Structure formats: structure tokens, C-alpha cells
């Protein structure tokens, strides 16, 4: 070893132990409460990532126990059912700072955030002097490995002790961590509880059990068996690359032609674009990338960034593929929110993927509204980046700003001056899925400003706001209908009775008065979950409180697209469009009522809380909306177009995938080799996200 090398090594040794001390706040260990949250976060994120890669539905148990009250020493236990870590890798994962496989792959992952589990081991050792106990079992071994891991901070190396084998009984694979640390358990908005609660919302496929220091259990059950879509690594896009990275790519390339190099190593570059890029960068197509001079690399970068143009325009590049993103998707956000916050109205929206500076990203939002939450407080904001909860620095975060940029007053929430965080009984969820999440600082708690992302977020908020407004309007209408019923069923009869008894006269007949008071046809709709049958029962009562006979067609929305089935529908009727059913009713005589009932099966509790009712007919129906025939036509037209599109898409997809296979082979290999995938892989879970947004009867909520 040369002297220079020795010096460099020394420098590194000092740096790594001091690095932690000096950067405690970046790493999330600056306060006693935050240290605990960070530790839970590192362990839980790892568990979720490992399960996802191994296609396992995660069962995670987190327990915090008091060890020494006076000295604030707590013990943290985290157990998962993930693939486990092979014995040889344990010390790398737990004992080496910045060990990780994901640093070069361009795709969405939780692990981009935070220092990793080694930070926890180090913090534990620094504050208690104790090692971290790890037990790991992989499927192909009969017993689990148990080992205590400490750190030699000078050498950035793990110190193993008490290695042993333990019998786990029935459990086939998984990981257990037990570590103690100086930390404080706290309740509220910034707590382990909140972190796990938020995690459970965006990971509806996970079952999370938390046992707090008081021994109280908090359970967030799994609400879907569907694993998040498998994320693929993608090649960098020319728009998002930096000079250094480009130089490295050129230098490491073994390609013999520039055009091949461009097509194979970047996403969004077609054969034509590769030629044009060479042309504007004044590079010979035959040139070997390895032989590029710094000036030439710079010229190529300028071509990438559109600074060098072809006939006055930047070279046209395709967008990077968005298959590298794993959105949670509307229905699952809905379920996640519904299980965590008990409320009647949820609206969610997943925007189509978009690109900023060569990085694909996707915004998802959810809004839950209802009585259970405080009406006079700011709404709860639930921020996430790549399915990881962001709990600090709410004010400075791009996602918060997107919420604040909307005038919520028009959608039924309070907001002083139409700016800032709105007030009301609601929670707003925002999730950014991206291959490259940009934070304001190393603390990684707030997203930095980006106009494109902001605009996407804002659009999603507006869409959700419209859904909320519709809901509130409908609620108001229903409230009015209920009032009318109370009026004629309870109050008017009470007035008649009391007046008659005071005057000592007979109680008069009310029919004529009631018809005059109502002078309307009224629909009363109930949509309720039936615990026993596990079905959603719907009933629509129609009363004719006018003095003439009336005839109507009644139409309803129902969850056809979500896979629901309509059963027990004795009146028959017919399908008007996807998700819209209609009944032509017999003439309704004055003072007569009729009822439509049916049940919805094959959907779960909370999937369908409200039924929209429409009518065709001349006299207004209170409690239903007049059918907008133009809108219905539009829906039918879109449906048709959508079906045709889909057929075409499938053909396209086949062709494309054949081509892709050849090109992406090298990267795919890398990715797969990084993780140990156990035998019981479930691989049927690529979600079908091809659905385009279309006009609906209810503000894009179905």
C-alpha cells in the first residue's frame, strides 16, 4: 500500500465514525424521539422492500419496550416474514454504512431515503454500548441464524459475536431484529404510531402490528392481497443526465458505434434520434464512445439538453418508460385510507405518469372527509415519497405547497383568504412516486420545488376538490329530502293532533295538506353494507306526492368496473352504459310509492358507499338528478373508443416487448442477481394500470 493510499484509508476511518456524530440530524438521530422513529423506519422500510422484491405479502410486528426509564433506554423489536438474509450477507447489511444495491439502479425504491439499518446499529452501540441482535431465516435452510452485530467504526466493519442457530418452528423465512437505544416514545402527529399508520395507508398489502411501551396493541390489517407492481430498472434518459455521469458511461462503454451506444444505454432514444443526436453534436456515428474527448462529451450533453438544435428544434426524444414506477392506485389508496380513518367519503386519483428532467414520476392523491375528524382544525396532510411517509418539515414541502395552491373554499373546505392549508374534517394524502425524488435537504423530509411536479399535484387536487364538492352538494340535497320526510311523517301529524286536542275536535285528515306541502316526487336511496351476507344492499324508494300520475325511468351507478355483481334485482331493467343500470317503472299514481332493491356482491366493505340516482321524466324527483343525456352519450362514446384503443394497445405492447427484451437484458440481470428470491415467488401481480381517465357521472371518482 502506498503512502497516499494509507492516508486515504486513514481519512476514511476517521470520517466514518465522526460522520455519524456530525450528521446526526441528516441521518434522523438528532432528538430522542426522532431517533426512535428513524430506527423503526429503517427496519420497516427494509422489511417492506425485501418482501416486495421477493413477492411476499408482508406481516410486520413492531414492539417497543421500556428498559430503563431514567436513562431513556428503549428496546425495539421488529419482525417480518420477508425472504430473510443469507448468513454471509448479514454483516454487510447491518454492519457496513452505505451498503446497498440500489444506488445505481434507476427505479422507484424506498431505500433511497435514509442511511440504512446500519445507522440504527451504530446509534444503538453509541448510546448503549450494546450490539444489535439479528435472527434471519431463509427458506432453504432448516434453522435461523442468530448473531449479535456490533460495529468497528474505524474499519467500517461489522463485529460478530454469539453466532448460533435457532429453531423457528413453523416459520419458513423472515428476519428479527432486537436493538436497544437511548430514545423516547411519544404519541401524536410525529410518532412511531403515526409513522406506522401512514405506512399502512400506502402499503395496503401489508399487515402491521404495533405494540407500544404501555403494551397496547395497534393493528392495521392487510386490505388487499395484491402486491405492489414489480418495478423495473430503466436506463437514464438524456434529459436527466449530468456531465460526470455521461463521461462515466462513455468511458465504461464497450460499444463500437455511437448510435448503438446511444440506443442501448439511454431510454427514449430511437434509432432516428441517435443519428440526429450524433449529427447535432458533430460526432461521427462510427465513433467509439470510449474514445470521446471531453469536448465531445460536452457537445453530446448539449445535444441531450436541447442546446444544440436540429433545424431550430431540439432533437425529439421519447419519454422514458414509466414501468419503473409503482403507484399505489386509486382503489388501494381508498382502502388504505378507509381502514385508517373511519369516514364515509373518500376520493382518490392517480395521475398518469409524467416526466421531469428525464425522470418519470407520478402523483397520487386521496381525500377523506367526514364527521370523525375535527371541523375547525387544519386538515391532516399525509405526505409520501415512494411509499415512505414524510413526517417533518411539512411547511417547506412541495406536496404541501400543491395543496396550498388550491382555493379550497370553492370545494367546501374553510381556508382563510383562499390560501394555506385548508380547515375542515378531512385528511389529504399526496404520494409522489419517482425514480429520482428531489429533497430540499439531506434530512429527506421535504420535497424541493419543481414546477412540473407541482402542476401535476395541483391538477390532482382540483380534480379531487370537484369530487368533494359533488359529495357535499349531494349530502345537502339528501339532507333536504330527509327534512321533508321528517316534516310530513312526524311534524305535520303532531301539529294536527295537538291542535285537535287543544280545540277538543277530531284529528283532521292530512293527505291533502301533505300533497300540497311536498308537491314533488321523492326518491330516498340507501346504500348499506350487510355484515351477514357480505354484500352491499341498495334500496331506492320512490314516492309520488303530487296530484297527478307520473312515470319515470330510474338510473343508478353501480361498481361494474370494480368487478361488482348485481344480484337480487327483481325488477330487471337493463344496462345503459358500463356502471349505469336503468329501470323503466310503471306509472306511479298520486300518493303511491314503489321500491327498487338489489344487492352488490364481489366487492368489499367500503368499496361502495354511495349510489347516484338519476331519472328520466318530466316532473322533478327530489333526491335524484335529471339524467344528462349528452353526458351519457359521451360516456358511451368514450367507452367504445377505450375498447378499440385497448385492442390496439395490446398489439403494440406485444411488438414492443419483443424488442425491449433484447435491449434491456443486461440491466435486468443485474437487478435480479442482487436479491435472493425464494422459491415461493408470487409473480402474478403486475397491476393493470392502463385505464385512461374518462368522463364519469361523478367527477372522475369511479
Amino acid at each position, binding site marked *: 500500500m502506498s503512502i497516499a493510499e494509507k492516508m486515504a484509508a486513514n481519512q476514511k476511518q476517521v470520517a466514518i465514525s465522526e460522520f455519524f456524530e456530525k450528521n446526526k440530524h441528516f441521518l434522523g438521530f438528532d432528538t430522542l424521539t426522532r431517533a426512535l422513529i428513524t430506527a423503526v423506519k429503517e427496519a420497516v422500510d427494509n422489511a417492506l422492500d425485501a418482501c416486495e422484491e421477493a413477492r411476499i405479502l408482508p406481516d410486520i410486528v413492531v414492539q417497543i419496550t421500556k428498559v430503563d426509564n431514567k436513562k431513556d433506554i428503549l428496546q425495539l423489536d421488529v419482525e417480518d416474514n420477508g425472504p430473510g438474509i443469507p448468513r454471509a450477507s448479514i454483516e454487510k447489511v447491518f454492519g457496513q454504512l452505505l451498503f446497498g444495491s440500489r444506488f445505481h439502479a434507476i427505479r422507484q425504491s424506498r431505500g433511497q431515503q435514509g442511511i440504512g439499518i446500519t445507522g440504527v446499529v451504530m446509534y444503538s452501540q453509541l448510546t448503549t454500548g450494546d450490539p444489535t441482535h439479528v435472527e434471519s431465516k431463509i427458506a432453504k435452510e432448516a434453522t435461523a441464524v442468530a448473531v449479535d452485530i456490533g460495529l468497528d467504526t474505524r474499519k467500517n466493519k461489522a463485529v460478530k459475536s454469539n453466532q448460533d442457530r435457532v429453531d423457528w418452528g413453523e416459520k419458513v423465512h423472515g428476519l428479527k431484529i432486537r436493538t436497544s437505544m437511548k430514545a423516547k416514545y411519544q404519541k401524536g402527529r410525529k410518532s412511531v404510531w403515526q409513522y406506522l399508520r401512514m405506512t399502512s395507508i400506502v402499503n395496503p398489502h401489508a399487515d402491521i402490528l404495533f405494540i407500544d411501551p404501555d403494551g397496547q396493541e395497534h393493528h392495521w390489517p392487510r386490505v388487499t392481497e395484491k402486491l405492489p407492481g414489480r418495478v423495473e430498472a430503466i436506463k437514464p434518459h438524456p434529459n436527466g443526465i449530468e456531465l460526470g455521469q455521461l463521461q462515466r458511461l462513455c468511458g465504461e462503454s464497450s460499444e463500437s458505434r455511437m448510435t448503438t451506444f446511444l440506443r442501448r444505454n439511454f431510454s427514449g432514444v430511437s434509432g432516428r434520434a441517435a443519428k440526429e443526436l450524433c449529427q447535432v453534436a458533430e460526432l461521427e456515428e462510427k465513433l467509439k464512445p470510449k474514445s470521446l474527448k471531453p469536448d465531445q462529451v460536452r457537445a453530446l450533453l448539449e445535444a441531450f439538453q436541447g442546446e444544440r438544435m436540429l433545424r431550430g428544434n431540439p432533437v425529439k426524444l421519447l419519454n422514458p418508460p414509466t414501468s419503473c414506477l409503482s403507484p399505489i392506485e386509486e382503489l388501494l389508496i381508498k382502502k388504505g385510507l378507509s381502514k385508517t380513518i373511519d369516514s364515509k367519503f373518500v376520493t382518490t386519483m392517480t395521475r398518469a405518469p409524467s416526466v421531469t428532467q428525464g425522470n418519470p414520476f407520478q402523483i397520487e392523491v386521496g381525500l377523506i372527509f367526514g364527521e370523525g375528524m375535527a371541523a375547525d382544525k387544519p386538515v391532516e396532510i399525509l405526505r409520501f415519497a415512494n411509499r415512505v411517509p414524510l413526517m417533518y418539515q411539512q411547511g417547506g414541502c412541495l406536496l404541501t405547497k400543491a395543496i396550498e395552491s388550491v382555493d379550497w373554499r370553492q370545494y367546501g373546505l374553510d381556508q382563510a383568504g383562499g390560501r394555506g392549508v385548508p380547515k375542515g374534517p378531512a385528511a389529504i394524502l399526496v404520494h409522489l412516486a419517482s425514480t429520482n425524488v428531489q429533497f430540499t435537504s439531506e434530512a429527506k423530509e421535504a420535497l424541493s420545488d419543481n414546477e412540473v411536479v407541482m402542476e401535476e399535484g395541483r391538477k390532482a387536487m382540483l380534480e379531487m376538490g370537484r369530487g368533494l364538492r359533488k359529495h357535499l352538494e349531494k349530502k345537502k340535497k339528501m339532507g333536504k329530502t330527509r*327534512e*321533508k320526510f*321528517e*316534516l310530513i311523517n*312526524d*311534524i*305535520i301529524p*303532531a*301539529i*294536527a293532533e*295537538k*291542535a*285537535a286536542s*287543544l*280545540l277538543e*275536535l277530531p284529528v*283532521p285528515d*292530512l293527505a*291533502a*295538506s301533505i300533497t*300540497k*306541502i311536498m308537491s314533488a316526487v321523492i326518491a330516498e336511496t340507501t346504500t348499506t353494507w350487510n355484515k351477514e351476507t357480505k354484500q352491499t344492499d341498495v334500496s331506492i324508494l320512490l314516492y309520488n306526492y303530487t296530484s297527478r300520475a307520473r312515470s319515470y325511468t330510474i338510473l343508478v351507478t353501480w361498481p361494474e368496473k370494480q368487478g361488482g355483481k348485481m344480484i337480487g334485482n327483481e325488477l330487471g331493467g337493463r344496462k345503459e352504459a358500463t356502471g349505469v343500470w336503468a329501470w323503466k317503472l310503471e306509472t306511479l299514481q298520486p300518493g303511491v310509492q314503489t321500491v327498487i332493491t338489489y344487492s352488490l356482491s364481489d366487492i368489499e366493505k367500503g368499496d361502495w358507499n354511495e349510489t347516484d340516482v338519476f331519472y328520466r321524466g318530466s316532473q322533478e324527483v327530489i333526491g335524484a338528478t335529471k339524467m344528462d343525456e349528452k353526458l351519457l352519450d359521451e360516456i358511451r362514446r368514450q367507452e367504445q373508443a377505450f375498447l378499440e384503443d385497448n385492442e390496439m394497445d395490446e398489439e403494440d405492447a406485444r411488438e414492443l416487448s419483443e424488442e425491449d427484451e433484447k435491449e434491456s437484458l443486461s440491466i435486468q440481470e443485474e437487478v435480479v442477481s442482487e436479491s435472493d428470491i425464494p422459491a415461493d415467488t408470487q409473480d402474478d401481480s403486475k397491476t393493470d394500470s392502463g385505464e385512461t381517465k374518462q368522463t364519469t357521472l361523478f367527477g372522475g371518482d369511479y
Partner: protein
Amino acid sequence: MVAVRKSVEETKVALHGVVREMYDRIIKGDPPTMTLPVRTKNNIAFDPKLGVYKYGKKQTIRDATSLGSAKQLLRALHVIEFIEAMIDDGKSSTLREMYYISEGWGLGKFQSQNESNNLAEDLEIVTRCLREDFKLRPEEDGSRMIGNITLRERNRKGQWMRINARDDVGDSGYGVPYNVEKEKIEFLEHDVKFIMAIETGGMFDRLVENGFDEDFDCALLHLKGQPARSTRRIMKRMSEEWDLPVVVFLDGDPWSFRIFASIAYGAIKTAHISEYLATPSSTYLGITADDILAYDLPSDDLSKKDVEALNAELTDPRFADGWWQEQINMMLEIGKKAEQQSLAKYGLDFVTDTYLPEKLAELGLN
């Protein structure tokens, strides 16, 4: 429409009239209704015969086509039933007690005390009875009075007690009961030149301590802010029966102007019985907008609400005369208001030694 005291039978008949209106409408196949005058400043008019403001001809029909109105009608029926029972049993109740009793009225129960108070007033208006006829009494007690006035009051045991409101009372004065009608109070004799009504307790106590009532031969009456009905009624009776002038000494702000209007011309809320409660011969003594300038009184800026109130007063028929328009406009112009007790700027005796004598001299009362 002049309200007169009704006999028990007349009261019952009047109340049955309200019930009858509802019953007959149902028989005809219409929604039940209750007809009553509009109770806003847009529907009060000066009655030259009575010298006070009364409700005009605008009527509102409360019909049972909305849930809120229908509930009001149902409540009215419950209240009528309750009143009849009290009349029959020889009982009475406070408005607050009635509010709590309504807990047992099911759909007809009151949501707030305000509702029950308003409904009692509605019934007074429609039936032209007084709430005393309904055996309902207010929660608020009357005011207190000090001065050389002798009256007799019938006590709980039905015996008449002779009371001199200067010699037979302590520093807090004679407590005015909620009922000051003839069956309860009779005026015997007096040795005062005028009655001074005072807004705040602090100022009332100041004048009492300084012996103002004896030095200036007057009776002092504490209004306690917006005066209760019994306070206005006793002022009215003394002024009428003894032909005594009434001067009103209030804070200098828009709300005091309203207090004065309700004393002198009748309150909007009780315009159906203005001739019972209002004292048209009363005079506003101060604090005027002029006084704030003339005496250079410590003052506060008008709030947004104050300005709104002043502007509303400019279009209130009770403030239509020139002097009031001038005062209101002046207050808006200087943008200031002052409390009675700001006179203490010049010492504790300034009000009794200087301010009041000067103001009374202007009115020819000193």
C-alpha cells in the same frame, strides 16, 4: 292595535285563535300557518296617537312547508298547552323554566332559550296579550332605584308594604320587581323634579355616593345596559302618573343610542307593546358626540361593528329627526366613542359638580 290587559278567559280565547288558524288550514287541505307582523326596522311606524313606534302593516306568514317553520308551529301549540295548564293551576314559570320543560315535548322541544323567548313574544303579538297574561316571567330582574319616592308593593304573602326608595333602602337601592303593574305596585308620593336613568352600575354608584339624588332632587334608576321590560315599564308609569321628566345618561356609543331609542320610542322587538313600555317624553342627556369634543374626553376608535351600527341607525325611522342625524354623523366623522366613566379624567366629583349640572341647565332642569 293597542295591547290591554286581558282576563283569563280572554287570554284563552286569544290563544285558541292561533290554534284555530292551523286547524282550519288543515281541514281546507292546506299547510297550517301562523300569521304575524314582520319584526324588523322596516316595519315599524310612528303612531301619532300613542306617540311611540309600533309595528306597521307588513305581515309574515309562517307556514309548515319547511321543517323549521313547521317545528315553530308545533312548539307554539306546546307553549299554548303549557300556558293553559298554568292558568288553570294558578302557577307561573320563568321563560327559562319553560325552556327546560320543553325537553319533554319531543319534536316540539326548543333548541335554544332564544327560540323560546322569541316564541313567547310571537304569541304576545298575535294574541295582543302580555306575557304576564301568559304567566310567563323573564329571567332578568329589574333595575334598582334610589330617590325620594314612596310606593307600596304587594309581597309574596299578599300584603302591601310601604317603601321609601331613599330612606328604607341600602346603598343598592330599591329593587324593581319583574311585575310592576298596578296589582303589584302602587305609587304613593314623591319629592323629585325628574328621573335620571343611568346605563352603568359604576356611574349609578358614583352618583349615589356623591349624594346627587338629594342635591338635585331626582330619582336615580340603574338601567343595566339594555333595560328590562319592567325597568322601562316603571319609568313609563312614573313619568305618566306623576308627569315627571326622564333624562337618560348613557355611554356615548351607537349601542347607547339604541338603548335610548327603545326607552323613548319603543324597541323593535317589543313594538307590539310600545305604548306600555316607551316613555316618549324622555330626553337624551349624554354622552353626546358633542361632549366627546367639548369635554375632550378619553375615547376609543369606532370598531367596524360600531360604524355598521351607526349607519343602520341613519336609516332607522326612530332616528329620523335632525338632532339625531347630526349626532350620528358627527360620531361617524370623529370616529370616536366614549364611556360615561371617562368623565373621571377630571376627578371623581367632576361628573356631579360640573358635567351634569351643565347638561341639566341646557334642558332647563337645574
